């Protein structure tokens, strides 16, 4: 599948794989992924635990474990991050590409005031000093709608609510005005009310700051109003990729369809049980042969066990790694 407007690409992931040796054998959490992120685009990457969605982006930024073997290309403004030195990566990570982790409590230092932690980021990444720093921190808190920023800077992480901590993490990521923000399950531990608010906020920041945003999540329900495009991952591969609206209206991979049907909605018919995907995600040490999803698939047949399906073009901009994609119906 080709990108319709190649010049707008900001991050290009090409034939990218991550492999770890473990005592029990070799594990490949990311297998041959191709993905482009355009300037100012909102991309959602969706999958269950262990699908490789976090490993893909940690690996792209050189944050895989020391023993990982990373292959392929990750082009950021023409620079290949896979072959870049640690020094070069540090110029990009945090400044140009910011990563917001799932659990703000473990990412924030409980002994330091929020303001101290934010100032540290600014000083390290931009060399800013003096009176400006506090102003810029207040401004960043304001951007994520944390009121009374001046007072909040003197508070400790435990004095913030869960939603406010997550927003403070986003504020920290915004300090260096990154071109790309990667938010890894930013709403999973939060109340639905706060979830809705954080997603709205990411959408607004992207529009106002002209950033690209990658939202990593297991819940297809939250991507609908947010992402331009969605990539669904399973067993380390992107198994469906396309415009979010189109994919949600007509998923072309049985796994995407299963994920969609598993989201409880307020207008479901509650007399019938919630649709589920039978079985468990694959064991990374023993990935099934052929299509990794075939053991859980309702429409699998003999040829699904033979070869790993290529990403078939449903039409321009929409691909599915299912040889039976025309047969996928709700």
């Amino acid at each position, binding site marked *: 599948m080709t990108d319709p407007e190649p010049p707008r690409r900001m991050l290009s992931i090409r034939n990218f794989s991550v492999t770890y040796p473990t005592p029990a054998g070799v594990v490949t959490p990311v297998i041959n992924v191709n993905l482009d992120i355009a300037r100012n685009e909102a991309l959602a990457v969706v999958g269950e*635990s262990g699908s490789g969605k976090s490993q893909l982006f940690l690996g792209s930024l050189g944050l895989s474990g020391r023993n990982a073997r990373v292959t392929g290309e990750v082009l950021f403004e023409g620079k290949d991050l896979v072959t870049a030195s640690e020094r070069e990566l540090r110029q990009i990570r945090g400044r140009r590409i910011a990563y917001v982790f799932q659990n703000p409590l473990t990412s924030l230092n409980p002994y330091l005031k929020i303001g101290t932690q934010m100032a540290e980021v600014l000083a390290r990444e931009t060399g800013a000093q003096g009176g400006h720093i506090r102003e810029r921190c207040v401004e960043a808190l304001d951007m994520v709608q944390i009121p009374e920023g001046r007072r909040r800077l003197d508070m400790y992480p435990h004095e913030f609510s869960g939603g406010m901590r997550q927003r403070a993490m986003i504020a920290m990521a915004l300090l260096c005005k990154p071109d790309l923000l990667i938010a890894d399950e930013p709403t*999973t531990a939060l109340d639905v*009310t706060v979830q809705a608010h954080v997603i709205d906020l990411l959408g607004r920041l992207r529009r106002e700051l002209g950033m690209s945003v990658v939202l990593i999540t*297991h819940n297809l329900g939250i991507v609908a*109003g947010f992402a331009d495009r969605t990539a669904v991952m399973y067993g380390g591969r992107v198994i469906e990729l396309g415009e979010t609206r189109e994919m949600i209206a007509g998923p072309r991979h049985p796994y995407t369809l299963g994920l969609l049907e598993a*989201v*409880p*909605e307020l207008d479901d018919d*509650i007399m019938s049980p919630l649709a*589920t995907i039978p079985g468990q995600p694959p064991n990374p040490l023993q990935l099934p042969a052929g299509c990794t999803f075939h053991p859980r698939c309702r429409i699998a047949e003999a040829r699904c066990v033979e070869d790993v399906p290529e990403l078939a073009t449903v039409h321009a901009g929409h691909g599915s790694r299912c040889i039976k994609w025309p047969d996928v119906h709700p």
Partner: protein
Amino acid sequence: MIADPTDSRPLLQVKQLGVRFLVKGGFLRPKKQLKALTAIDFDVAPGESLGIVGETGSGKSTLARSLLGLVDPSEGSILWAGKPLERKSRAAVRKDLQVVFQDSLGSLDPRWTVGQSIAEALTTHSSRSASEIDQAVQKVMTDVGLRLELAGRFPHELSGGQAQRVAIARGLILRPRMIVFDEPVSALDVSTQAQILNLIDRIRKSEGLSYLFISHDLAVVRRIVDRVLVLYLGRIMEIAGRDEFFARPRHPYSQALIAAVPSTRGHKHQHAVLSQDIPSPLAPPSGCVFRTRCPKAADLCAATVPPLVENQRRHLVACHFPG
């Protein structure tokens, strides 16, 4: 107070329950009082399931903990099958009233096998032979959809969904009359969540079980409860039957919770999404506790606490301007 007309004796009655904590005020500062729950009043009939809904800080978990005897009420009372639930009667009730927590992996002993963990309650609460216990463990594992070979595994070898099934099996093995589910699916992937929700629904139908289902997600609650109770800063905002509640939510807070439910079908939000955070329970707003985030708040709301008022459809709401 509402009582189900088909059953004269509720299994659980909570009457004007209040729970207060003393919180350290800092060096040489006086202790502050935190009202975790105020005037909580509701019944649960045998076989009924009640959803308890609210954000973090609304008092949902304190309510669960006081039912389980982990927190002492400061006011009011809790009746189990018509009798006051007191410290000394807890042990007898414990068998009938079980709990499943959100962090199921954390509630399993890492040194025990799955089989041992599931059997624990039976070995504590009954004097059955080893083979009877084995049989009961196998039956309950089958009921919750756990493969029997998992009995010899340790908690760290389980997936999140399997660990939650083990926790449910532990709750079920004594054949209790009621289970308190405290956010049992919040930490799970969507696909696993669907499996666990269907499991809970199936068990309830086959066992005639009552349960309290604590959650912040109304789309989840809607699938598996008969009635909904909405809590905010330790007070009841609304109680109604499920269909009535979702057809006509009357409290602005309930309406906001419904609006926040994510949808893949691209629904337009009918009501505004709440923007601010829940206020600190150490300094709750005067009058109606929800007024600081309420789109309808007026002077009256700051002055008077709205009483919980019931209409003809057995729908209770605590709001001066209900929808």
